[in-house]
């Protein structure tokens, strides 16, 4: 989260090149996705982050990480023998332990298929330190030794519903390569 904030700060001051929508492919992280028109992407070697209205209001993030990489809070780790429900449970444990996500509330946790992979979809809300409420839709799955997560997070007021359909379209274009 600290790194994410740093990235957001850098973006704010405009020190990083941003790119417009279109096809995106990461050979390092082995995925491809179609970035929606009007969304800008931030170059980072950690994950793909894109936004239309600015990352403090809404953003989508796609990340691939080694499944066994330790998490910040929970000492549990993912593995490729886990069922999607077990992976979802671990991610919920991690998120609900993150104190940046105040008043964390799980709204939904259901199975999902992402690019043909059995995974999960969780929906949760939280408050930031200023008291604004955000909602995040979080898809995840384990493939081989990697954990992929694709999320959309936005302020509930005005922003979340506005770009939800666009995010779902983006999700449909996601491919592990």
């Amino acid at each position, binding site marked *: 989260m*600290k790194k994410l904030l740093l990235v957001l700060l850098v973006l704010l001051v405009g020190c990083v090149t941003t790119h417009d929508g279109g096809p995106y492919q990461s050979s390092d992280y082995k995925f491809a996705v179609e970035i929606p028109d009007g969304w800008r992407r931030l170059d980072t070697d950690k994950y793909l982050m894109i936004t239309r209205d600015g990352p403090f209001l809404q953003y989508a993030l796609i990340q691939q990480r080694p499944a066994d990489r330790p998490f*910040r*809070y*929970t*000492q*549990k780790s993912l593995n490729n*023998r886990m*069922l*999607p*429900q*077990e992976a979802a449970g671990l991610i919920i*444990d991690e998120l*609900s*332990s*993150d*104190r*940046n996500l*105040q*008043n*964390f509330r799980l709204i939904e*946790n*259901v*199975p999902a298929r992402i690019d043909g992979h059995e995974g999960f979809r969780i929906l949760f809300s939280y*408050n930031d*330190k200023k*008291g604004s409420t955000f909602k995040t839709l979080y898809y995840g799955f384990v493939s081989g030794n990697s954990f992929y997560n694709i999320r959309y997070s936005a302020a509930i007021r005005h922003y979340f519903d506005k770009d939800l359909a666009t995010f779902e379209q983006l999700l449909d274009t996601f491919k592990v390569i």
Partner: protein
Amino acid sequence: MKYLVTLLTFCWLAFGCTTPGPVCVYEDPATSQYETMLWQRAQEEQAILNNSGLLYHNSELEDYLNHVARRLQPDDISSDLSFKIKIIQDPNLNAFAFPNGVIYVHTGILARMDNEAQLALLLAHEMTHCINKHTMRVLGNIKSRSKFIATVQETSARTAMTQELAKFLGLTGSMAAVTGYTRELETEADHIGLDIAANAGYDINEVVRLLEHLKQELRMEGLVEPYFFGTHPNVEQRIANVRVWLDNEYRGKTAGVKNALIFQSKLSQLILDNVSLDLRLGRFFAARRGVEKFLRIQPDDPQAYYLLGEIYRQRGQEDDLKTAMGCYQKAIALDLSFAAPHKAIGLIHYKDGEKHLAKKYFETCLLLSPNAPDKAYIQKYLEHCSKNGEG
């Protein structure tokens, strides 16, 4: 986080620059502008903490903790200072007091105590920080601001969890909860806290048990001593200190009360809730110890056996699944209508490829709990079981 703490510290110090020099620590709080501002700041920090969703709510338990605090409260302290105890949902071992008398105690440290005397000793320690105005003393005696800032930074950066806690706290809270006061003041709080607990009629010998209990917990979990022990003298030194005091000043004094039974009855639900927090963080040893402690208080609790099963299932070491299965079966035997252990057994069979057995347990789970929160997953498992033709 370091930057945030630095910023907060600078703000505080800049704020402090406009005030007169150090205020006499024994001055009445109401007459001290400096202290009034400190209390206002503490209230602001508490408001953030109270609205963070981190508080553990159990009105009966809170009443009980506040009852113990009232019993401890010395008669000769300022009437402006009244103590209020709040509980934070956090399995880490910590407790901290704001200068205005609001004391936050983590579920983790409460869950590890054995009796009311130990609770009283902990609260008396924290109350001493307030009564003797330790925050004022630290802030009023800062000789080197840069050194002070560095200390706050260094201490709060010590572990991820302290950084997390500090996110909610300003300087007063961070000093109380994360960095601690000076070692001398912590020793003073240990010593005077002992006196306060003794005067309230508690068995102060329990302080050794409390500290040894916590020392063992820290060792078994491989934890750095982050909070309650942050800049305190180390536990060994504290145990040595209290042994000296008990052997000399308190020698021959009548033993006080422990009130173990009432403590256990009031705390039992918290112990189990804290197990869930430990489990969430993957602290399997602490979680198991917690649930075993709960089962000594309530031996036939199906939820506790279910949680014990979850601990073993999620840990997944050799023979853990077998042990987990036994725990789930016990939970079912104690409560035939308990759906969750059926699902858990179903999961074990499902992953073992025993789809016919898994199906039986998943179906029972949905029969018992048609609107289970994870119904969508269970239905998916049932579909797979049927597809494999083993249904």
